[in-house]
Protein backbone atom coordinates (compact mmCIF):
# COMPACT_ATOMS: atom_id res chain seq x y z
CA UNK A 1 0.00 0.00 0.00
CA UNK A 2 1.38 3.39 -0.92
CA UNK A 3 0.23 6.70 0.46
CA UNK A 4 2.11 8.97 -1.87
CA UNK A 5 -0.01 11.78 -3.31
CA UNK A 6 0.20 12.24 -7.06
CA UNK A 7 -1.15 14.79 -9.49
CA UNK A 8 -3.52 13.68 -12.25
CA UNK A 9 -5.17 15.48 -15.15
CA UNK A 10 -8.54 14.66 -16.66
CA UNK A 11 -6.89 12.55 -19.36
CA UNK A 12 -5.47 10.37 -16.60
CA UNK A 13 -8.97 9.80 -15.27
CA UNK A 14 -9.97 8.61 -18.73
CA UNK A 15 -6.95 6.35 -18.75
CA UNK A 16 -8.01 4.92 -15.38
CA UNK A 17 -11.52 4.30 -16.68
CA UNK A 18 -10.31 2.51 -19.79
CA UNK A 19 -7.89 0.41 -17.73
CA UNK A 20 -10.71 -0.59 -15.41
CA UNK A 21 -12.89 -1.49 -18.38
CA UNK A 22 -10.06 -3.54 -19.89
CA UNK A 23 -9.81 -5.38 -16.56
CA UNK A 24 -13.46 -6.40 -16.93
CA UNK A 25 -15.10 -3.77 -14.75
CA UNK A 26 -18.39 -2.09 -15.52
CA UNK A 27 -17.59 1.53 -14.74
CA UNK A 28 -20.49 3.23 -12.96
CA UNK A 29 -20.61 6.81 -11.78
CA UNK A 30 -22.53 10.07 -11.65
CA UNK A 31 -24.59 11.16 -14.65
CA UNK A 32 -27.35 13.72 -15.12
CA UNK A 33 -30.74 12.10 -15.65
CA UNK A 34 -34.27 13.34 -14.93
CA UNK A 35 -33.07 16.62 -13.38
CA UNK A 36 -30.76 14.95 -10.88
CA UNK A 37 -27.36 13.32 -10.50
CA UNK A 38 -27.86 9.55 -10.48
CA UNK A 39 -25.46 6.62 -10.75
CA UNK A 40 -25.35 4.77 -14.02
CA UNK A 41 -22.88 3.29 -16.50
CA UNK A 42 -20.17 5.65 -17.71
CA UNK A 43 -17.66 5.12 -20.48
CA UNK A 44 -15.41 8.16 -20.08
CA UNK A 45 -15.20 11.45 -18.21
CA UNK A 46 -17.39 12.93 -20.98
CA UNK A 47 -20.33 11.15 -19.30
CA UNK A 48 -19.72 12.91 -15.98
CA UNK A 49 -21.81 15.96 -14.95
CA UNK A 50 -19.29 18.62 -15.96
CA UNK A 51 -20.08 22.06 -14.60
CA UNK A 52 -23.22 20.83 -12.82
CA UNK A 53 -23.94 21.40 -9.15
CA UNK A 54 -27.08 21.24 -7.06
CA UNK A 55 -28.97 23.11 -4.39
CA UNK A 56 -30.54 20.96 -1.70
CA UNK A 57 -32.90 21.69 1.14
CA UNK A 58 -35.67 20.03 3.11
CA UNK A 59 -37.78 18.22 0.51
CA UNK A 60 -36.10 20.07 -2.34
CA UNK A 61 -33.38 19.35 -4.90
CA UNK A 62 -32.48 21.43 -7.95
CA UNK A 63 -29.59 21.15 -10.37
CA UNK A 64 -27.62 24.31 -11.08
CA UNK A 65 -24.93 25.36 -13.51
CA UNK A 66 -21.54 25.99 -12.03
CA UNK A 67 -19.15 28.53 -13.46
CA UNK A 68 -16.33 26.00 -13.71
CA UNK A 69 -15.54 22.68 -15.36
CA UNK A 70 -15.83 20.56 -12.21
CA UNK A 71 -16.66 16.91 -12.90
CA UNK A 72 -17.51 16.18 -9.26
CA UNK A 73 -18.96 19.53 -8.22
CA UNK A 74 -22.24 18.12 -6.90
CA UNK A 75 -23.45 16.81 -3.56
CA UNK A 76 -24.79 13.23 -3.27
CA UNK A 77 -28.04 12.70 -5.21
CA UNK A 78 -31.13 10.52 -4.76
CA UNK A 79 -29.47 7.17 -5.34
CA UNK A 80 -27.03 5.30 -3.12
CA UNK A 81 -24.42 2.80 -4.26
CA UNK A 82 -26.37 0.10 -2.44
CA UNK A 83 -28.36 -0.45 -5.64
CA UNK A 84 -25.25 -2.16 -7.05
CA UNK A 85 -24.29 -4.23 -4.01
CA UNK A 86 -27.77 -4.97 -2.74
CA UNK A 87 -30.04 -4.64 -5.79
CA UNK A 88 -33.73 -3.66 -5.38
CA UNK A 89 -34.81 -7.10 -6.65
CA UNK A 90 -32.70 -10.21 -6.33
CA UNK A 91 -33.51 -13.78 -7.38
CA UNK A 92 -32.57 -16.04 -4.47
CA UNK A 93 -33.49 -19.52 -5.71
CA UNK A 94 -35.65 -21.60 -8.00
CA UNK A 95 -37.67 -24.67 -7.11
CA UNK A 96 -39.19 -27.19 -9.48
CA UNK A 97 -41.46 -30.15 -8.87
CA UNK A 98 -40.74 -32.84 -11.46
CA UNK A 99 -40.55 -36.63 -11.77
CA UNK A 100 -37.45 -36.65 -9.54
CA UNK A 101 -39.22 -34.76 -6.79
CA UNK A 102 -38.59 -31.21 -5.65
CA UNK A 103 -35.43 -29.74 -7.21
CA UNK A 104 -33.96 -26.59 -5.71
CA UNK A 105 -31.37 -24.65 -7.67
CA UNK A 106 -29.33 -21.53 -7.02
CA UNK A 107 -29.83 -18.75 -9.55
CA UNK A 108 -27.42 -19.05 -12.40
CA UNK A 109 -26.45 -15.38 -12.67
CA UNK A 110 -23.20 -13.76 -13.61
CA UNK A 111 -21.99 -11.58 -10.75
CA UNK A 112 -21.43 -8.08 -12.09
CA UNK A 113 -18.03 -6.54 -11.45
CA UNK A 114 -18.44 -2.84 -10.76
CA UNK A 115 -15.92 -0.02 -10.58
CA UNK A 116 -17.68 2.71 -8.63
CA UNK A 117 -16.48 6.13 -9.66
CA UNK A 118 -17.09 9.09 -7.37
CA UNK A 119 -17.87 7.46 -4.03
CA UNK A 120 -18.02 10.16 -1.33
CA UNK A 121 -16.71 9.73 2.20
CA UNK A 122 -20.22 9.33 3.59
CA UNK A 123 -21.01 6.76 0.92
CA UNK A 124 -17.87 4.75 1.58
CA UNK A 125 -18.80 4.65 5.24
CA UNK A 126 -22.33 3.57 4.29
CA UNK A 127 -20.90 0.67 2.28
CA UNK A 128 -18.84 -0.36 5.31
CA UNK A 129 -21.94 -0.19 7.52
CA UNK A 130 -23.77 -2.48 5.11
CA UNK A 131 -20.71 -4.77 5.09
CA UNK A 132 -21.16 -5.14 8.82
CA UNK A 133 -24.86 -5.97 8.37
CA UNK A 134 -24.55 -8.37 5.47
CA UNK A 135 -21.17 -10.00 5.99
CA UNK A 136 -20.37 -10.16 9.69
CA UNK A 137 -22.07 -12.07 12.47
CA UNK A 138 -23.40 -15.60 12.29
CA UNK A 139 -25.34 -15.18 9.02
CA UNK A 140 -23.66 -13.66 6.03
CA UNK A 141 -25.27 -12.86 2.73
CA UNK A 142 -23.61 -14.60 -0.21
CA UNK A 143 -25.33 -12.45 -2.83
CA UNK A 144 -23.91 -9.30 -1.24
CA UNK A 145 -20.52 -10.90 -0.69
CA UNK A 146 -20.08 -11.99 -4.31
CA UNK A 147 -20.67 -8.45 -5.53
CA UNK A 148 -18.77 -6.74 -2.72
CA UNK A 149 -15.61 -8.80 -3.19
CA UNK A 150 -15.33 -7.70 -6.80
CA UNK A 151 -15.87 -3.97 -6.58
CA UNK A 152 -13.32 -1.27 -7.22
CA UNK A 153 -13.90 2.00 -5.36
CA UNK A 154 -12.67 5.32 -6.70
CA UNK A 155 -13.54 7.78 -3.94
CA UNK A 156 -13.86 11.52 -4.40
CA UNK A 157 -13.09 13.65 -1.37
CA UNK A 158 -15.83 16.16 -0.74
CA UNK A 159 -14.95 19.84 -0.82
CA UNK A 160 -18.39 21.45 -1.14
CA UNK A 161 -20.95 19.95 1.23
CA UNK A 162 -24.64 20.65 0.75
CA UNK A 163 -27.31 22.24 2.85
CA UNK A 164 -28.58 18.91 4.24
CA UNK A 165 -25.13 17.39 4.91
CA UNK A 166 -23.76 16.50 8.35
CA UNK A 167 -21.07 13.90 7.65
CA UNK A 168 -18.68 15.61 10.08
CA UNK A 169 -21.08 14.86 12.95
CA UNK A 170 -21.13 11.20 11.94
CA UNK A 171 -17.36 11.02 11.33
CA UNK A 172 -17.89 9.99 7.72
CA UNK A 173 -16.31 12.88 5.80
CA UNK A 174 -15.72 15.24 4.11
CA UNK A 175 -12.54 13.36 3.09
CA UNK A 176 -13.01 9.68 2.39
CA UNK A 177 -11.76 7.38 5.12
CA UNK A 178 -9.90 4.12 4.49
CA UNK A 179 -11.50 1.43 2.38
CA UNK A 180 -11.13 2.89 -1.10
CA UNK A 181 -8.87 1.64 -3.88
CA UNK A 182 -8.17 5.15 -5.11
CA UNK A 183 -9.20 8.53 -3.76
CA UNK A 184 -9.05 11.82 -5.59
CA UNK A 185 -9.63 15.46 -4.69
CA UNK A 186 -10.79 17.71 -7.47
CA UNK A 187 -8.79 20.99 -7.53
CA UNK A 188 -10.45 23.86 -9.34
CA UNK A 189 -7.68 26.46 -9.31
CA UNK A 190 -7.24 26.40 -13.05
CA UNK A 191 -9.71 26.39 -15.94
CA UNK A 192 -9.09 22.68 -16.44
CA UNK A 193 -9.45 20.92 -13.05
CA UNK A 194 -6.64 18.71 -11.81
CA UNK A 195 -6.77 15.89 -9.31
CA UNK A 196 -4.75 14.89 -6.27
CA UNK A 197 -4.80 11.13 -6.01
CA UNK A 198 -3.95 8.54 -3.36
CA UNK A 199 -3.96 4.78 -3.64
CA UNK A 200 -5.66 2.89 -0.82
CA UNK A 201 -5.04 -0.65 -2.05
CA UNK A 202 -2.54 -2.61 -4.10
CA UNK A 203 -5.08 -2.66 -6.94
CA UNK A 204 -5.35 1.11 -6.80
CA UNK A 205 -1.58 1.62 -6.62
CA UNK A 206 -1.06 -0.64 -9.63
CA UNK A 207 -3.59 1.31 -11.71
CA UNK A 208 -2.08 4.62 -10.69
CA UNK A 209 1.36 3.47 -11.76
CA UNK A 210 0.14 3.02 -15.32
CA UNK A 211 -0.80 6.72 -15.44
CA UNK A 212 2.83 7.59 -14.90
CA UNK A 213 1.78 10.50 -12.70
CA UNK A 214 3.88 13.31 -11.30
CA UNK A 215 4.29 14.04 -7.60
CA UNK A 216 1.83 16.48 -6.15
CA UNK A 217 3.45 19.82 -5.31
CA UNK A 218 3.39 20.76 -1.63
CA UNK A 219 1.44 23.96 -2.34
CA UNK A 220 -1.45 21.95 -3.79
CA UNK A 221 -1.45 19.63 -0.79
CA UNK A 222 -1.76 22.64 1.50
CA UNK A 223 -4.64 23.93 -0.58
CA UNK A 224 -6.31 20.53 -0.44
CA UNK A 225 -6.03 20.50 3.31
CA UNK A 226 -7.53 23.99 3.49
CA UNK A 227 -10.44 22.82 1.29
CA UNK A 228 -11.21 19.93 3.64
CA UNK A 229 -11.07 22.18 6.68
CA UNK A 230 -13.37 24.66 4.98
CA UNK A 231 -15.74 21.86 3.89
CA UNK A 232 -15.92 20.50 7.43
CA UNK A 233 -16.92 23.95 8.64
CA UNK A 234 -19.65 24.30 5.98
CA UNK A 235 -21.96 21.48 6.99
CA UNK A 236 -25.59 22.48 6.47
CA UNK A 237 -26.73 20.39 9.45
CA UNK A 238 -25.26 18.92 12.60
CA UNK A 239 -26.18 16.13 14.97
CA UNK A 240 -24.74 14.96 18.25
CA UNK A 241 -24.87 11.14 17.98
CA UNK A 242 -24.60 10.45 21.74
CA UNK A 243 -27.24 13.02 22.58
CA UNK A 244 -29.52 11.70 19.81
CA UNK A 245 -29.19 8.14 21.05
CA UNK A 246 -29.91 9.14 24.65
CA UNK A 247 -32.89 11.29 23.65
CA UNK A 248 -34.38 8.48 21.59
CA UNK A 249 -33.90 5.84 24.25
CA UNK A 250 -35.54 7.96 26.94
CA UNK A 251 -38.10 9.56 24.62
CA UNK A 252 -39.97 6.45 23.60
CA UNK A 253 -43.25 7.70 25.04
CA UNK A 254 -42.74 11.32 24.02
CA UNK A 255 -45.71 13.26 22.68
CA UNK A 256 -43.38 14.32 19.89
CA UNK A 257 -44.06 11.14 17.91
CA UNK A 258 -47.70 12.10 17.49
CA UNK A 259 -46.56 15.46 16.15
CA UNK A 260 -44.22 13.82 13.61
CA UNK A 261 -47.00 11.41 12.70
CA UNK A 262 -49.18 14.34 11.68
CA UNK A 263 -46.58 15.46 9.13
CA UNK A 264 -45.16 12.11 7.98
CA UNK A 265 -46.59 10.53 4.81
CA UNK A 266 -45.16 7.11 5.71
CA UNK A 267 -44.33 6.91 2.00
CA UNK A 268 -40.97 5.16 2.72
CA UNK A 269 -38.84 7.55 0.66
CA UNK A 270 -36.39 8.19 3.53
CA UNK A 271 -35.62 4.50 3.98
CA UNK A 272 -35.26 3.79 0.29
CA UNK A 273 -32.84 6.66 -0.36
CA UNK A 274 -30.86 5.88 2.83
CA UNK A 275 -27.51 4.28 1.91
CA UNK A 276 -27.55 2.02 4.99
CA UNK A 277 -31.21 0.88 5.23
CA UNK A 278 -31.17 -2.81 4.41
CA UNK A 279 -34.66 -4.25 5.02
CA UNK A 280 -36.15 -6.58 2.46
CA UNK A 281 -39.14 -8.80 1.90
CA UNK A 282 -39.14 -12.24 0.29
CA UNK A 283 -41.78 -13.49 -2.15
CA UNK A 284 -42.46 -16.79 -3.81
CA UNK A 285 -43.48 -16.43 -7.45
CA UNK A 286 -45.15 -19.59 -8.74
CA UNK A 287 -46.16 -20.56 -12.24
CA UNK A 288 -49.87 -21.09 -12.94
CA UNK A 289 -49.56 -24.87 -12.81
CA UNK A 290 -47.88 -24.70 -9.41
CA UNK A 291 -44.95 -26.89 -10.46
CA UNK A 292 -42.18 -24.31 -10.38
CA UNK A 293 -41.42 -21.34 -8.23
CA UNK A 294 -38.91 -18.53 -7.92
CA UNK A 295 -37.95 -16.87 -4.65
CA UNK A 296 -37.26 -13.13 -4.92
CA UNK A 297 -35.95 -10.65 -2.42
CA UNK A 298 -37.14 -7.06 -2.74
CA UNK A 299 -36.35 -3.83 -0.86
CA UNK A 300 -38.89 -3.24 1.87
CA UNK A 301 -39.38 -0.41 4.35
CA UNK A 302 -40.33 -0.13 8.01
CA UNK A 303 -42.74 2.62 6.88
CA UNK A 304 -44.95 0.18 5.00
CA UNK A 305 -47.91 -1.00 7.04
CA UNK A 306 -47.40 -4.66 6.15
CA UNK A 307 -43.80 -4.60 7.36
CA UNK A 308 -44.89 -5.62 10.87
CA UNK A 309 -47.92 -7.67 9.86
CA UNK A 310 -48.15 -10.30 12.56
CA UNK A 311 -51.10 -12.63 13.13
CA UNK A 312 -53.19 -10.57 10.72
CA UNK A 313 -52.46 -7.12 12.13
CA UNK A 314 -49.63 -4.64 11.72
CA UNK A 315 -47.87 -3.88 15.00
CA UNK A 316 -46.81 -0.32 14.19
CA UNK A 317 -50.07 1.14 12.98
CA UNK A 318 -49.58 4.90 13.30
CA UNK A 319 -47.15 6.85 11.09
CA UNK A 320 -45.64 8.30 14.28
CA UNK A 321 -44.82 4.81 15.56
CA UNK A 322 -43.22 3.93 12.26
CA UNK A 323 -41.13 7.11 12.17
CA UNK A 324 -40.04 6.50 15.77
CA UNK A 325 -38.98 2.97 14.82
CA UNK A 326 -36.92 4.16 11.88
CA UNK A 327 -35.10 7.04 13.59
CA UNK A 328 -34.55 5.03 16.80
CA UNK A 329 -33.04 2.14 14.88
CA UNK A 330 -30.88 4.43 12.77
CA UNK A 331 -29.52 6.61 15.57
CA UNK A 332 -29.77 4.52 18.74
CA UNK A 333 -30.43 0.79 18.45
CA UNK A 334 -28.12 0.29 15.47
CA UNK A 335 -25.32 1.05 17.91
CA UNK A 336 -26.47 -1.79 20.20
CA UNK A 337 -26.99 -4.13 17.28
CA UNK A 338 -23.91 -3.42 15.15
CA UNK A 339 -21.57 -1.37 17.40
CA UNK A 340 -21.85 1.72 15.22
CA UNK A 341 -24.40 4.31 14.18
CA UNK A 342 -26.61 3.56 11.20
CA UNK A 343 -26.34 7.15 9.94
CA UNK A 344 -23.53 8.67 7.86
CA UNK A 345 -24.89 12.21 7.65
CA UNK A 346 -25.43 12.22 3.87
CA UNK A 347 -28.71 14.13 4.28
CA UNK A 348 -30.63 12.14 1.67
CA UNK A 349 -33.56 11.45 4.02
CA UNK A 350 -33.94 15.21 4.54
CA UNK A 351 -33.67 16.25 0.90
CA UNK A 352 -35.82 13.43 -0.51
CA UNK A 353 -38.66 13.56 2.02
CA UNK A 354 -41.53 15.00 -0.06
CA UNK A 355 -42.76 16.96 2.98
CA UNK A 356 -39.28 17.92 4.22
CA UNK A 357 -39.08 16.13 7.56
CA UNK A 358 -35.54 16.65 8.89
CA UNK A 359 -34.21 14.07 11.34
CA UNK A 360 -31.77 16.54 12.87
CA UNK A 361 -34.65 18.94 13.69
CA UNK A 362 -36.73 16.06 15.06
CA UNK A 363 -33.91 15.13 17.44
CA UNK A 364 -33.63 18.79 18.50
CA UNK A 365 -37.37 18.97 19.12
CA UNK A 366 -37.36 15.70 21.06
CA UNK A 367 -34.46 16.96 23.14
CA UNK A 368 -36.14 20.29 23.82
CA UNK A 369 -39.31 18.54 25.03
CA UNK A 370 -37.29 16.33 27.36
CA UNK A 371 -35.28 19.17 28.85
CA UNK A 372 -38.51 21.07 29.46
CA UNK A 373 -40.19 18.25 31.41
Amino acid at each position, binding site marked *: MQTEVVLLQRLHLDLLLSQLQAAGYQTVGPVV*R*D*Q*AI*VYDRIQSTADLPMGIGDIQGK*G*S*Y*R*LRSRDDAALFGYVV*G*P*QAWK*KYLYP*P*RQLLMRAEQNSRGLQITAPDQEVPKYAMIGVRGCELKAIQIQDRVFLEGPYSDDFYRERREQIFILAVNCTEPGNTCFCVSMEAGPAAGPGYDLAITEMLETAEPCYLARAGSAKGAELLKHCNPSHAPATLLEKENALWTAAAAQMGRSLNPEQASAALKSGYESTHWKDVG*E*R*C*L*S*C*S*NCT*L*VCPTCFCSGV*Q*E*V*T*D*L*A*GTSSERWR*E*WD*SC*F*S*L*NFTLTAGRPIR*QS*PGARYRQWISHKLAFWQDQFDQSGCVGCGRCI*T*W*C*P*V*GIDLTSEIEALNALQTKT
Partner: protein
Amino acid sequence: MKPKLAVWKFASCDGCQLSLLDCEDELLMVAEALEIAHFPEASRAVVAGPYDISLVEGSITTPHDLERIEAIRAQSTWVISIGACATAGGIQALRNFQAVEDFMRMVYARPEYIQTLSQSTAISEHIKVDFELRGCPINKNQLLELINALLNRRKPHLPSESVCHECKLRGTVCVMVSQGIPCLGPVTHAGCGAICPAYQRGCYGCFGPSDSPHPAALSQAFKSLGVSEAELVRLYRGFNSNAPAFREESLQHE
Protein backbone atom coordinates in the same frame (compact mmCIF):
# COMPACT_ATOMS: atom_id res chain seq x y z
CA MET B 1 -62.40 -30.45 -13.05
CA LYS B 2 -60.94 -27.03 -13.77
CA PRO B 3 -62.12 -24.09 -11.64
CA LYS B 4 -64.70 -21.95 -13.42
CA LEU B 5 -64.04 -18.27 -14.05
CA ALA B 6 -66.74 -15.67 -14.73
CA VAL B 7 -66.28 -12.04 -15.72
CA TRP B 8 -69.06 -9.53 -14.95
CA LYS B 9 -69.56 -5.97 -16.00
CA PHE B 10 -71.26 -3.07 -14.22
CA ALA B 11 -70.85 0.69 -14.86
CA SER B 12 -67.42 0.78 -16.49
CA CYS B 13 -65.48 1.24 -19.72
CA ASP B 14 -64.48 -2.46 -20.16
CA GLY B 15 -60.79 -1.62 -19.94
CA CYS B 16 -60.19 -3.80 -16.90
CA GLN B 17 -61.77 -6.95 -18.28
CA LEU B 18 -59.85 -6.36 -21.49
CA SER B 19 -56.71 -6.73 -19.35
CA LEU B 20 -57.54 -10.43 -19.22
CA LEU B 21 -57.52 -10.61 -23.03
CA ASP B 22 -54.37 -8.49 -23.02
CA CYS B 23 -52.62 -11.33 -21.24
CA GLU B 24 -51.93 -12.70 -24.76
CA ASP B 25 -48.86 -14.87 -24.06
CA GLU B 26 -50.25 -16.11 -20.78
CA LEU B 27 -53.88 -16.36 -21.90
CA LEU B 28 -53.55 -19.92 -23.15
CA MET B 29 -52.03 -20.94 -19.82
CA VAL B 30 -54.89 -19.25 -18.00
CA ALA B 31 -57.38 -21.06 -20.24
CA GLU B 32 -55.60 -24.34 -19.49
CA ALA B 33 -55.71 -23.75 -15.75
CA LEU B 34 -59.27 -22.39 -15.65
CA GLU B 35 -62.52 -22.88 -17.53
CA ILE B 36 -63.49 -19.45 -18.80
CA ALA B 37 -67.19 -20.03 -18.22
CA HIS B 38 -68.77 -16.61 -18.48
CA PHE B 39 -67.00 -13.83 -20.34
CA PRO B 40 -69.38 -12.18 -22.85
CA GLU B 41 -66.71 -9.73 -24.00
CA ALA B 42 -64.65 -12.68 -25.26
CA SER B 43 -67.18 -15.39 -26.10
CA ARG B 44 -70.93 -15.88 -26.64
CA ALA B 45 -70.65 -19.37 -25.16
CA VAL B 46 -71.83 -19.16 -21.59
CA VAL B 47 -71.56 -21.96 -19.06
CA ALA B 48 -74.07 -21.79 -16.22
CA GLY B 49 -72.94 -21.19 -12.63
CA PRO B 50 -71.94 -21.67 -9.90
CA TYR B 51 -68.50 -20.18 -10.47
CA ASP B 52 -65.27 -20.52 -8.51
CA ILE B 53 -63.90 -17.10 -9.36
CA SER B 54 -65.99 -14.08 -10.34
CA LEU B 55 -64.12 -11.02 -11.56
CA VAL B 56 -66.42 -8.02 -11.20
CA GLU B 57 -65.74 -4.86 -13.17
CA GLY B 58 -67.65 -1.58 -12.77
CA SER B 59 -69.55 0.30 -10.09
CA ILE B 60 -73.10 0.01 -8.83
CA THR B 61 -75.17 2.84 -10.34
CA THR B 62 -78.70 1.48 -10.96
CA PRO B 63 -81.38 -0.37 -8.98
CA HIS B 64 -80.94 -3.29 -11.40
CA ASP B 65 -77.22 -3.44 -10.56
CA LEU B 66 -78.15 -4.00 -6.92
CA GLU B 67 -80.08 -7.13 -7.82
CA ARG B 68 -77.45 -8.46 -10.23
CA ILE B 69 -74.57 -8.15 -7.79
CA GLU B 70 -76.49 -10.11 -5.13
CA ALA B 71 -77.10 -12.89 -7.66
CA ILE B 72 -73.41 -12.98 -8.62
CA ARG B 73 -72.35 -13.23 -4.99
CA ALA B 74 -74.79 -16.08 -4.43
CA GLN B 75 -73.26 -18.22 -7.19
CA SER B 76 -69.55 -17.43 -6.68
CA THR B 77 -66.98 -18.87 -4.29
CA TRP B 78 -64.60 -15.92 -4.67
CA VAL B 79 -65.70 -12.47 -5.73
CA ILE B 80 -62.87 -10.21 -6.85
CA SER B 81 -63.64 -6.64 -7.78
CA ILE B 82 -61.29 -5.30 -10.42
CA GLY B 83 -60.47 -1.68 -11.18
CA ALA B 84 -61.22 1.78 -9.80
CA CYS B 85 -64.95 1.59 -10.71
CA ALA B 86 -65.50 -1.66 -8.84
CA THR B 87 -63.26 -0.80 -5.90
CA ALA B 88 -64.11 2.90 -5.43
CA GLY B 89 -66.97 3.92 -7.74
CA GLY B 90 -64.80 5.09 -10.64
CA ILE B 91 -64.77 8.40 -12.50
CA GLN B 92 -68.59 8.28 -12.57
CA ALA B 93 -68.54 8.72 -8.78
CA LEU B 94 -67.96 12.42 -9.48
CA ARG B 95 -71.78 12.45 -9.51
CA ASN B 96 -71.65 11.76 -5.78
CA PHE B 97 -70.56 15.34 -5.19
CA GLN B 98 -73.47 16.82 -7.20
CA ALA B 99 -77.23 16.33 -7.65
CA VAL B 100 -77.63 13.57 -10.24
CA GLU B 101 -81.14 14.85 -11.22
CA ASP B 102 -79.53 18.00 -12.61
CA PHE B 103 -77.29 15.94 -14.89
CA MET B 104 -80.27 13.87 -16.07
CA ARG B 105 -82.22 16.97 -17.01
CA MET B 106 -79.27 18.38 -18.93
CA VAL B 107 -78.36 15.19 -20.81
CA TYR B 108 -81.63 13.40 -21.56
CA ALA B 109 -84.66 14.72 -23.43
CA ARG B 110 -86.90 12.42 -21.35
CA PRO B 111 -85.18 12.05 -17.96
CA GLU B 112 -88.21 10.22 -16.58
CA TYR B 113 -87.10 7.11 -18.52
CA ILE B 114 -83.80 6.99 -16.61
CA GLN B 115 -83.50 4.80 -13.58
CA THR B 116 -80.31 5.57 -11.73
CA LEU B 117 -79.02 5.80 -8.18
CA SER B 118 -77.85 9.09 -6.72
CA GLN B 119 -74.41 7.60 -5.97
CA SER B 120 -71.91 5.47 -7.86
CA THR B 121 -70.48 3.01 -5.36
CA ALA B 122 -67.92 0.24 -4.99
CA ILE B 123 -68.97 -3.42 -5.12
CA SER B 124 -67.80 -3.95 -1.53
CA GLU B 125 -70.43 -1.48 -0.30
CA HIS B 126 -73.10 -3.99 -1.32
CA ILE B 127 -71.73 -7.51 -0.98
CA LYS B 128 -68.80 -9.27 0.65
CA VAL B 129 -65.79 -9.01 -1.66
CA ASP B 130 -62.90 -11.45 -1.21
CA PHE B 131 -60.22 -9.35 -2.87
CA GLU B 132 -60.00 -5.94 -4.51
CA LEU B 133 -57.61 -5.42 -7.40
CA ARG B 134 -56.90 -1.72 -7.82
CA GLY B 135 -56.17 0.45 -10.81
CA CYS B 136 -57.57 2.40 -13.72
CA PRO B 137 -57.08 0.15 -15.50
CA ILE B 138 -55.82 -2.83 -13.52
CA ASN B 139 -52.34 -4.10 -14.31
CA LYS B 140 -52.46 -7.41 -16.20
CA ASN B 141 -49.47 -8.79 -14.31
CA GLN B 142 -51.27 -8.14 -11.05
CA LEU B 143 -54.36 -9.92 -12.41
CA LEU B 144 -52.23 -12.92 -13.39
CA GLU B 145 -50.52 -12.91 -9.99
CA LEU B 146 -53.90 -12.92 -8.26
CA ILE B 147 -55.28 -15.78 -10.39
CA ASN B 148 -52.00 -17.62 -9.90
CA ALA B 149 -52.13 -17.18 -6.12
CA LEU B 150 -55.76 -18.35 -5.99
CA LEU B 151 -55.01 -21.45 -8.06
CA ASN B 152 -51.96 -22.29 -5.94
CA ARG B 153 -53.68 -21.41 -2.65
CA ARG B 154 -51.02 -18.90 -1.66
CA LYS B 155 -51.04 -15.25 -0.66
CA PRO B 156 -50.82 -12.94 -3.68
CA HIS B 157 -47.86 -10.57 -3.78
CA LEU B 158 -49.72 -7.34 -4.42
CA PRO B 159 -48.07 -4.58 -2.36
CA SER B 160 -50.41 -2.02 -0.84
CA GLU B 161 -47.81 0.59 0.06
CA SER B 162 -47.17 3.88 -1.76
CA VAL B 163 -46.16 4.40 -5.37
CA CYS B 164 -42.95 5.99 -3.99
CA HIS B 165 -41.82 2.48 -3.22
CA GLU B 166 -42.12 1.49 -6.88
CA CYS B 167 -40.33 4.66 -8.05
CA LYS B 168 -37.41 3.90 -5.79
CA LEU B 169 -37.21 0.25 -6.84
CA ARG B 170 -37.04 1.20 -10.51
CA GLY B 171 -34.60 4.08 -9.85
CA THR B 172 -36.92 6.93 -10.83
CA VAL B 173 -35.96 10.32 -9.40
CA CYS B 174 -38.71 11.89 -7.24
CA VAL B 175 -40.43 14.47 -9.48
CA MET B 176 -41.88 16.32 -6.52
CA VAL B 177 -38.52 16.90 -4.83
CA SER B 178 -36.41 17.46 -7.95
CA GLN B 179 -38.90 19.45 -10.05
CA GLY B 180 -41.61 20.64 -7.70
CA ILE B 181 -44.29 18.67 -9.58
CA PRO B 182 -47.32 17.84 -7.38
CA CYS B 183 -47.45 14.03 -7.29
CA LEU B 184 -50.06 11.81 -5.60
CA GLY B 185 -47.50 8.99 -5.36
CA PRO B 186 -46.91 9.28 -1.59
CA VAL B 187 -50.60 8.56 -0.85
CA THR B 188 -51.37 6.24 -3.77
CA HIS B 189 -51.52 2.45 -3.76
CA ALA B 190 -48.68 0.74 -5.61
CA GLY B 191 -49.39 -1.56 -8.53
CA CYS B 192 -48.90 0.35 -11.79
CA GLY B 193 -45.11 0.16 -11.53
CA ALA B 194 -44.88 3.96 -11.09
CA ILE B 195 -45.37 4.76 -14.75
CA CYS B 196 -46.13 8.50 -14.68
CA PRO B 197 -43.14 9.71 -12.61
CA ALA B 198 -40.88 7.70 -14.95
CA TYR B 199 -42.16 10.04 -17.71
CA GLN B 200 -41.66 13.16 -15.58
CA ARG B 201 -45.33 13.46 -14.60
CA GLY B 202 -46.88 13.48 -11.17
CA CYS B 203 -48.90 10.42 -10.15
CA TYR B 204 -52.65 10.73 -10.90
CA GLY B 205 -53.68 8.32 -8.17
CA CYS B 206 -55.17 5.72 -10.56
CA PHE B 207 -54.72 2.95 -7.98
CA GLY B 208 -56.51 4.84 -5.21
CA PRO B 209 -55.27 5.39 -1.66
CA SER B 210 -52.41 3.27 -0.28
CA ASP B 211 -52.87 1.14 2.85
CA SER B 212 -52.05 4.04 5.17
CA PRO B 213 -52.51 7.27 3.22
CA HIS B 214 -51.98 10.68 4.75
CA PRO B 215 -53.31 13.14 2.17
CA ALA B 216 -53.66 16.02 4.66
CA ALA B 217 -49.86 16.17 5.06
CA LEU B 218 -49.37 15.89 1.30
CA SER B 219 -51.86 18.72 0.63
CA GLN B 220 -49.81 20.99 2.89
CA ALA B 221 -46.72 20.25 0.78
CA PHE B 222 -48.71 20.81 -2.45
CA LYS B 223 -49.81 24.20 -1.16
CA SER B 224 -46.22 25.25 -0.60
CA LEU B 225 -45.58 24.28 -4.24
CA GLY B 226 -48.27 26.78 -5.21
CA VAL B 227 -51.21 24.42 -5.74
CA SER B 228 -54.54 26.24 -5.19
CA GLU B 229 -57.50 24.91 -3.20
CA ALA B 230 -59.47 24.36 -6.43
CA GLU B 231 -56.58 22.40 -7.92
CA LEU B 232 -56.34 20.30 -4.77
CA VAL B 233 -59.99 19.31 -5.15
CA ARG B 234 -59.37 18.27 -8.75
CA LEU B 235 -56.24 16.29 -7.83
CA TYR B 236 -58.13 14.06 -5.40
CA ARG B 237 -61.21 13.82 -7.63
CA GLY B 238 -59.97 11.56 -10.36
CA PHE B 239 -60.81 7.93 -10.93
CA ASN B 240 -60.89 7.26 -7.19
CA SER B 241 -62.77 10.33 -5.97
CA ASN B 242 -65.10 8.21 -3.84
CA ALA B 243 -62.35 6.23 -2.09
CA PRO B 244 -62.78 7.44 1.51
CA ALA B 245 -59.28 8.95 2.00
CA PHE B 246 -59.42 10.90 -1.29
CA ARG B 247 -63.07 11.84 -0.84
CA GLU B 248 -62.54 13.28 2.63
CA GLU B 249 -59.44 15.19 1.61
CA SER B 250 -61.14 16.71 -1.44
CA LEU B 251 -64.03 17.89 0.76
CA GLN B 252 -61.53 19.71 2.98
CA HIS B 253 -60.59 21.95 0.08
CA GLU B 254 -63.98 22.54 -1.54
